[in-house]
């Protein structure tokens, strides 16, 4: 866009990524005022209360789970992995959109990402926190989860580094750490802005400590930009590797329906698909509630819809390839798996999945529907459900009928499976509610860099010359 504006006569046909009439000051206020608001809005309090009830349900379920063991879940041989792993993969996938928006779109110089990146990164962090709970609790003895990490111990043993589950430990913990670093580094300049704008002493102290004395020094900005760009460059292969490794949990196994080479790219596309759907699911209401239409514009909604459409098609290709390969392999078990998937006892789940992930999102081809917030929101809800169903189809339906009919068994989730799943949604939303109220949810400094005033113009010698008569300095501090 910077090049485009330099070319005379060329007008960028796309709407701007920021509403008209903002300057540095009003933009700062627009975002910071949400944090500095003296009261709590009723809608926010109500939302937080409902979400927190969900979180309480999660905490109670975990308490009972630790007390009684994983037997309270419906998992039973041969379905040893069920809701716990479905939810793990679902949450991790949701998290990936945050990294994609903040890192990949930064590298691709998609400046429209600036208003949604912090928000999406926060989503990543909270989604990864929810995801991590499941495998950690699924071990059955979460109090010895530290055994997963390689440390010299009195048992004289080391973890098995040839296992995809071990790769998962490294991938997910690296992902969580790098996402947290990226998020915090992105926050530092804004925390300094909050420190300088705060009216109360305690606010200044808290923001001041978190901002680490950031003062906008040009040298600091230079290093900051380098570090931020490099972090983005590191996060991009990281996010691809994380979901590839998650897919190895399955693809390395020999279960029909898991043992396929298409899994890594297909899982990564699915993750981005689910993640963008979640960004829209949360972004559309937040945008309306806090009147952020000028900062999260229709162009953002449209762009995200298009990303969903594209990744949705890749996912559709994945489904098609699974179908094709199971036939082309000529393998009895593979062919049976596919038939069972479509017409077996859980067959309706497969068709629901196709409806949610493949059929419904096609309405986004039509411009009129991409512009309609209600429809986009509804489609993103369908995708959220669809991506959960996809993991159910892959995990449970491959396990419950494998090689030997004598070992087949239907899987039934218990009430605790559901309370834990919906509990994590509550926990996630609780964290989101706290985030949008107590942290500037849109990067202030990155938005300023998008304003036309932020561009340095050349050839200003005449204008600057003699702008001050007789060397009399005006008041400094206003």
């Amino acid at each position: 866009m910077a090049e485009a504006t330099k070319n005379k006569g060329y007008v960028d046909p796309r709407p701007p990524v920021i509403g008209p009439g903002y300057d540095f000051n009003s933009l700062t206020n627009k975002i910071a005022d949400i944090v500095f608001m003296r009261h709590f809005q009723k809608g926010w309090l109500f939302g937080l209360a409902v979400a927190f009830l969900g979180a309480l349900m999660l905490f109670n379920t975990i308490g009972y789970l630790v007390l009684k063991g994983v037997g309270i879940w419906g998992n039973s041989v041969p379905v040893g992995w069920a809701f716990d792993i479905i939810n793990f993969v679902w949450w991790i996938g949701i998290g990936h959109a945050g990294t994609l928006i903040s890192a990949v779109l930064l590298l691709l110089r998609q400046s429209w990402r600036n208003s949604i990146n912090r928000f999406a990164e926060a989503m990543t962090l909270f989604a990864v926190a929810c995801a991590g709970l499941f495998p950690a609790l699924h071990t059955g003895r979460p109090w010895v989860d530290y055994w997963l990490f390689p440390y010299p111990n009195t048992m004289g043993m080391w973890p098995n580094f040839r296992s995809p589950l071990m790769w998962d430990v490294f991938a997910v913990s690296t992902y969580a750490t790098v996402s947290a670093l990226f998020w915090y580094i992105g926050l530092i300049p804004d925390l300094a802005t909050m420190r300088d704008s705060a009216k109360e002493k305690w606010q200044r102290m808290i923001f001041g400590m978190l901002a680490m004395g950031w003062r906008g020094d040009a040298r600091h900005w230079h290093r900051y930009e380098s570090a931020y760009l490099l972090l983005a460059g590191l996060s991009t292969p990281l996010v691809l590797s994380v979901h590839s490794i998650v897919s190895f949990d399955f693809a390395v196994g020999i279960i029909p329906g898991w043992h396929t080479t298409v899994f890594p790219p297909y899982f990564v596309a699915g993750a981005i698909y689910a993640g963008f759907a979640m960004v829209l699911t949360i972004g559309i209401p937040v945008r309306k509630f806090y009147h952020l239409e000028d900062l999260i514009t229709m162009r953002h909604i449209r762009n995200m819809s298009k990303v969903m459409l594209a990744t949705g098609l890749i996912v559709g290709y994945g489904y098609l390839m699974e179908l094709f390969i199971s036939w082309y392999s000529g393998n009895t078990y593979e062919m049976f798996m596919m038939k069972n998937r479509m017409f077996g006892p859980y067959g309706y789940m497969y068709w629901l999945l196709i409806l949610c992930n493949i059929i419904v999102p096609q309405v986004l081809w039509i411009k009129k529907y991409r512009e309609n917030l209600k429809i986009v929101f509804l489609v993103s809800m369908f995708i959220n459900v669809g991506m959960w169903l996809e993991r159910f189809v892959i995990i449970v339906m491959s396990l419950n009928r494998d090689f030997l009919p004598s070992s087949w068994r239907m899987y039934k989730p218990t009430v605790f499976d559901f309370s834990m799943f919906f509990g994590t949604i509550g926990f996630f939303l609780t964290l989101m509610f706290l985030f949008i109220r107590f942290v500037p949810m849109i990067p202030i400094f990155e938005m300023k860099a998008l304003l036309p005033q932020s561009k340095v113009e050349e050839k200003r010698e005449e204008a600057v010359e003699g702008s001050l008569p007789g060397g009399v300095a005006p008041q400094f501090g206003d």
Partner: protein
Amino acid sequence: MNKQEEPTIYGVMARFDTPTEIVHAAKQVHAAGYRQVNAYSPFPIEELSEAIGFHKDRISLTVLAGGLSGAIGGFLLQYWTSAIDYPINVGGRPLLSLPSFVPIIFESGILLAAFGAVIGMIVMNGLPRPYHPVFNAPGFGRASRDRFFLCIKSTDPKFDGPATHEFLIGLGAKGVTDVEE
């Protein structure tokens, strides 16, 4: 050095209202031979750090160091534990099973490279630094909001209190003030 008699001056600070003005002024300050100059802005301005003569940072080096040590460490950890300290013979398969070590080599490389970027940036920037003399300048709080500041430090060999003051006013500053140490 006696604070009782004369407050030591950290530098002289000039205020500007637009990025264009400060970049223009910074270029002239640099051209006039001042080298110990700092500029402050609410958002990154590429031209500004160039104007005060700061062209190259060394963040990429800390990232490289982090990435290499992470990847090598990840490999050595896996090799030593799986092939030397705790070898398990599974049907005669090689103990140094490189392909299965790749994911963790990659992840640990990324992890330490990211720490390299973050710690490198924080340490080289001299953060955390809760107190800094420039915070004493009146209205400096708006450096994080909508104002741009240029500060010539008193340690600069060319620094000469009143003359530097006049010089900055001549550059079109909207205000110039001394910053106390």
